[in-house]
């Protein structure tokens, strides 16, 4: 039963107040894009064992979308941050790296 800190409300929202929105920081591809890029955008997923960047909506709450960095093996939450960004905050990446020296880093799988 996850709890995630909503960066907008400042509450530790619990899973029943949240709605998961899948992988974070996907780049949208529109009409001019290649089949590969479009397929990647809509379907291909990192699905990592370990640090995962994902989207959540505080649906039974302020209604805002936000981002979370979470470990899919331990469910540890490294941090949550604004939805209005195209990549994780540097400070958060540093924090994760410190906690998980083995972690290849954001986007390393891509």
């Amino acid at each position, binding site marked *: *039963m*996850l*709890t995630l800190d909503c960066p907008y409300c400042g509450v530790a929202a*619990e899973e029943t107040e949240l709605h998961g*929105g899948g992988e974070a920081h996907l780049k*949208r*591809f*529109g*009409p001019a*894009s290649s*089949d590969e890029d*479009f397929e990647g955008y*809509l379907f291909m997923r990192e699905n990592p064992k370990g640090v995962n960047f994902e*989207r959540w*909506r505080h*649906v039974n709450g302020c*209604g*805002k*979308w936000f981002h979370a960095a979470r*470990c899919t093996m*331990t*469910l*540890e*939450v490294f941090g949550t941050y604004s*939805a*209005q960004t195209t990549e994780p905050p540097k400070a958060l990446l540093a924090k994760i790296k410190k*906690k998980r020296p083995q972690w290849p880093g954001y986007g390393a799988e891509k």
Partner: protein
Amino acid sequence: MSTRLPNAGRLLNRSKAVEFTFNGKRLKGFEGDTLGAALLANDQMMVGRSFKYHRPRGIIASGAEEPNALVNMGQDGRFEPNQRVTTTELFDGLTATSQNHWPSLEFDVGVANNYVARFLPAGFYYKTFMAPRAAWKHVFEPIIRQSAGLGKAPKDRDADRYEHFYAYVDVMVIGGGIAGLQAAKAAGDSGAKVLLVEQTRHWGGRAPVDGAKIDGKPADEWITETLAALAAMDNVSVRTRTMGSGVYDHGYVLAYEQVADHTPGDGRPRHRLWRVRAKQIVTATGAIERPLSFAGNDIPGVMLAGAVRDYAINWGVSVGDRSVVVTNNDDAYRTAITLKEAGLDIPVIIDARAEANGDLPNQARALGIRIETGKAIAKVKGGKRVTGVAICQQAGEGAVLEEIACDSVAMSGGWSPVVHLWSHCGGKLIWDTEQAHFRPDADRSPTGADGAAFVVPAGIANGAMGTADVLVDADKAGKAAAKAAGFTAKRTAAPKAVQVDEAALSPVWIMPQGAGPKARMKMWLDYQNDVKVSDVQLAAREGYESVEHTKRYTTLGMATDQGKLSNINGLAILADSLNADIPQVGTTTFRPPYTPISMGAIAGEARGEIFQPLRKTPIHGWHEKNGVYWEPVGHWRRPYCFQRSGESVEQAVHREVKNTRENLGLLDASTLGKLVVTGPDAGRFLDMMYTNMMSNLKVGKCRYGLMCSENGFLSDDGVVARIDEDTWLCHTTSGGADRIHAWMEEWLQTEWWDWKVYVANLTEQFAQIAVVGPNARKVLEKLGGMDVSKEALAFMEWNEGKIGGFDARVYRISFSGELSYEISVPASQGRAFWDALHEVGAEFGAMAYGTEALHIMRAEKGFIMIGDETDGTIIPQDLGLNWALSKKKEDYLGKRAQQRSHMTDPNRWKLVGLETLDGSVLPDGAYAIAPGNNDNAQRNMVGRVTSTYHSPTLNRGIAMGLVLHGPDRMGEVIEFGKTDQTMVKAKIVDPVFYDKDGEKQNV
């Protein structure tokens, strides 16, 4: 025989006798009894039958670990199977019956299995019952099902109610023994908010039974004082009858409070399921005693030594006049001493160890009890109860040295910490060779949201076995938990206790060491599922080497006690068979709940009318009073039609269609989504949301729009009205309002966050009523207040003002092909407006109609319906809606997806109208069948029916469907297959069946 001892029983209120029945027999007990204690006090040795062999089963334990003594309890709405008698509080009028036998507990035909037990080893059913093929389903399986299962299935609806409760604490302490009490005290002293729960109704656990002295006082005194101290702290709460049943991620604990099980029908909720969020959890869950594996260790009267002691001291029950004690450790001597001091006979203590010279054995000797070391039980004699034991050398193969008569056997194989709650969320274990048990590995504890440990084991649950150690460990645990929760623990010393010095146990996994196969087939590991030493050895022999394989192959530990007694013993046998160390073999995964919890408690208050939210429009009440036949739409209920007396649903629908076409129909359209989109970028935003242009819509006008998912598929449609320069009102489908609102917010928040747009969902602010039919204008004119003439309010225009005194916004749109106005008024006035329309409209033939009439009328007009023509795999192009796909826009959600090869494939099925040659109604969902089969030998299909109705207007069947190259095949006749393999012929036609030129709606 087992009886009640005079004036013993620390938990009894002897002044209050309690009556209950078992298998119809009227019996007496006392307040404070468990059902188990009371049954034993009445010499009810046998209480049930085992799962597989239907062997006689008696009470073996005194708590949650009891595998045997399960009964049917209560009656009718309060009947419940598989009640554990050892944890069931006795109350006046309790009724219980034994389980899993026919015709009676004493004479059970199922016992036949026992006589052929030799032919029914573990997994025998995997090797047999294979021929003839049909026999499994029709012969073997039914027999197995009948003889399996335990209690009877309840028949009636549950008479009780249940509820949930959310609590948030710094430290939750699970277990109310001296460890839990001390841990709670230590944590509470730091100022942390503490919740302490105990599964029974009593505090203190086993300490008082074992005669512990704490800070120089008897345990009972210390417990009372500590409880008083806890009661004095505002930051500490304590609850009995509340079991910590599961530990989940991020500090979520499930606690199961049995509020009224002991007072049925007193109006309180029966169970309350607590969902606790704890920063730290202390598991002070104690330990469970292990049986010893000797032949006949399952005969009623063979019990755990600790349990025998509990019954004597807590409930003043002697389970036998002559009790043999058999052990591999010192603790069991406490039982012998207790019984002896109670004036009962202990013919012998059989100790498998070479010597026994600890304090307790010496006390026993001093009391004149005979002690036989290095010995074992070769076999227990008796059938439905113990009559004696045969003694042999533990080291030998079981040659009988002596037979001793007795009526009960108290056994102890040592104690295993209760590590369930530690393990639920990933806590790991280490093997303690000294104590021969698994205990929590402090270095590998469960971790929480912050990645740090959040469970702290305390006392015996952490492997601290002596009273003094328990208190020190618990004090440490309580302080550690408080610290981890952000508090500073007080510098206080742990209470002191005299620790009886106990000699080490010697692990004994079978008795005697060299017992042969025949004897091993009589050594029970899992009493309820009838798993024996020989079964585990067989599993190992056959290659089911992983502990999971063995568990599943033999069903060891899969009974209702989840292996509380059998797991370690079984593991040891498996390890021995594989010549491996026990830690190498490892344990099975511990899963919640610790002991079973009621489904009712899990469901909580959600049943009947409030099982799920039911959404109601302001006009809902009128519908209920006017013969409505409901159709669930999401959480809404919409009128499918309104039946009049003697009318079938179909007749009602046809009446509603005809009346709407000929006179005046009124539809409650309040459930339609109404989203207001406003801001300088609103037009640009809607151009992305919809496939067609919305930015160029003129103020005062309406336009029908389509929405697609990013994957290209149609997801919603509706009429959009331009309210002012910056504001649009978007109608969605009834099911779509919340979904589309969320969809818009998602794009605004996560993709185009710099666009200046706000969206609000005003669906429920308004009641919306469709006024439809040739007389629509007349009724509005009669109500008066707004010019609704063709000139003032043309088709696809809207206007707002007053109608009949109501604040109204009027949209001149039509989904039926008739002259039609959709009028929205504030929800608070919705019902009044509806009534007014009926009143004023009476002379014009006003009549309510439902969703089915709506569907038929739109189908007659060839309008598509989201959810009928679409199913999540349909793109606008399939439905001939290309006109709604803007060519001017370079992008909209779904546009890129619609460029993929399969989406542009000319062979996609396309929308057409369908007319059966014989005028009949095509079956809903029928497929168009073409000659031949595909590579998987399935018939070739070239189309399907998406909507099909009897049209009362045309008095024939009409349908829409998707057909391969359909639009190019007008007039062609194709065949649709019925489920009975017969075919219906239908002609491909234009989907618009009625008023092709739209004259009626444009008047």
